[in-house]
């Protein structure tokens, strides 16, 4: 369970979140929607303890992470698998080394074991053939897949966090990523997917949160989202028609 208890956050003088109350179970499949710069990424960074709220508390499984030091946060972060916006692969390392990054540090696997583990994970997201490519040689869709693979390399997270997983992809690739996201959550583990593409969110999530001006303008299911009167959300939803079917 992730709980935001009156969380406010600003970057310098720019107020991003104000007094946000929110609780999300580890099994829930949540889409966080909102325009550019509304603080969607900020929410994910707060959950991982990468930044601290100015006010309020954040509880992960009842554990207050706001007062924790960097070293103590490792266990909290290990509960999640995160795929950052644009994938965030290390561009000085090839695909294999990206996926093996944590394995090399935290396990004592031999070179062959690492190789076969990396191939196995890459295979599970369907990009085994890319193992020796550099990140800049990957297509957008492959890039995201490798990033998902890397986030899965170390054990089993309790929940997945995705930041704009389908942004910048063509409809076919976006659709494939959505399917991968749905597959990974088949066993009941939930996710928080941050996106501004409502069409993709509708495909995979069953709870929708809409961020506007630092607060939650909407929090509910797809029926509620599609029938809301809030003009800001309506504008977002009408985008679907213009985008075609998306995902």
């Amino acid at each position, binding site marked *: 369970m992730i709980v935001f208890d009156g969380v406010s956050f600003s*970057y310098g003088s720019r107020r991003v979140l104000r007094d946000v109350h929110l609780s999300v179970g580890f099994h829930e499949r949540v889409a966080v929607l909102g325009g550019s710069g509304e603080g969607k990424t900020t929410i994910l960074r707060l959950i991982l303890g990468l930044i601290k709220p100015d006010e309020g508390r954040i509880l992960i499984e009842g554990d207050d992470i706001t007062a924790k030091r960097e070293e103590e946060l490792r266990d909290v972060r290990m509960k999640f698998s995160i795929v950052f916006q*644009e994938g965030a692969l290390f561009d000085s390392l090839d695909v294999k080394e990206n996926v093996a990054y944590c394995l090399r540090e935290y396990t004592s696997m031999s070179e062959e074991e690492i190789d076969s583990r990396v191939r196995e994970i890459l295979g599970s997201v369907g990009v085994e053939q890319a193992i020796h490519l550099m990140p800049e040689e990957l297509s957008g869709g492959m890039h995201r897949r490798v990033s998902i693979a890397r986030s899965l390399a170390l054990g089993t997270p309790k929940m997945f966090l995705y930041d704009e997983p389908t942004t910048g992809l063509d409809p076919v690739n976006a659709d494939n990523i959505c399917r991968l996201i749905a597959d990974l959550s088949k066993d009941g583990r939930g996710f928080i997917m941050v996106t501004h593409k409502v069409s993709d969110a509708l495909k995979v999530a069953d709870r929708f949160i809409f961020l506007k001006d630092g607060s939650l303008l909407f929090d509910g299911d797809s029926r509620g989202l599609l029938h809301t009167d809030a003009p800001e959300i309506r504008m977002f939803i009408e985008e679907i028609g213009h985008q075609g079917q998306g995902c």
Partner: protein
Amino acid sequence: MDIKALLSDLQNFYTLAYRGLLGIVRRPFYFKDAMIQMDYAGAGSLVIVFIVDLFVGMALSLQLSAELSSLGMKMYIGMIVGISVVRELGPVVTALVFTGRVGAGMASELGSMVLGHQVDTIRVFGFDPVKKLVVPRIVSSLIMLPALTVIGVAVSLLGGYYIAVFVSHQSGTFYWSSIRNILTMENVLAGAIKPFIFGYLISSICCYMGLSTKGGAVGLRQSTTMAVVMSIVMIIISDFLLTRVLLYVLGFSV
């Protein structure tokens, strides 16, 4: 920028610079990352250091030769080139080249890692970005800038030799024997301490600027520019202060 922000920036910089230095002697060590940085900073800078220092040595020798010949003291050319290059020009010029090539690279690489959430990823994976990113860069600068400086000084002296012998028609043997005479413990120390200080300054300033990048491409340009400008200014100022202190400590009378 207001005073409060400036002070907190300075404090963050000192903290980073301090932790970066401490990280050299505290676990965990990331040898492989340091090796990659050393290869980039050292081997990668050889050619440009070679070219720049060669021409600095030649220009210096040419200027001196013109001036000294009107005074009839051309035989001092080796001595003056030697002292200027060993104590002052070699370390400073090499450090400036290093800033432009390696420091700017550090700032822009780390900056784009911040913007691309790669630094976030490193933290999520349980690594300390200071240990993983900053320490290897400080180590590589502390080792490679002094090494490059030695090479740069040698190349400058060679450039000076070329001008002294082939343009100014001095005796080559005499040139080298004057160089040997000025290579005293004091002169060598007065030059050799500098690249360690410069290397530490450049790497900590550039890493700090890179890691504090925010705001997209414009922010990246700003932090890279700031990194280079601050490094250059700090090199020049600290060179003066160091010279003052070293000359005093080593017992030169001014």
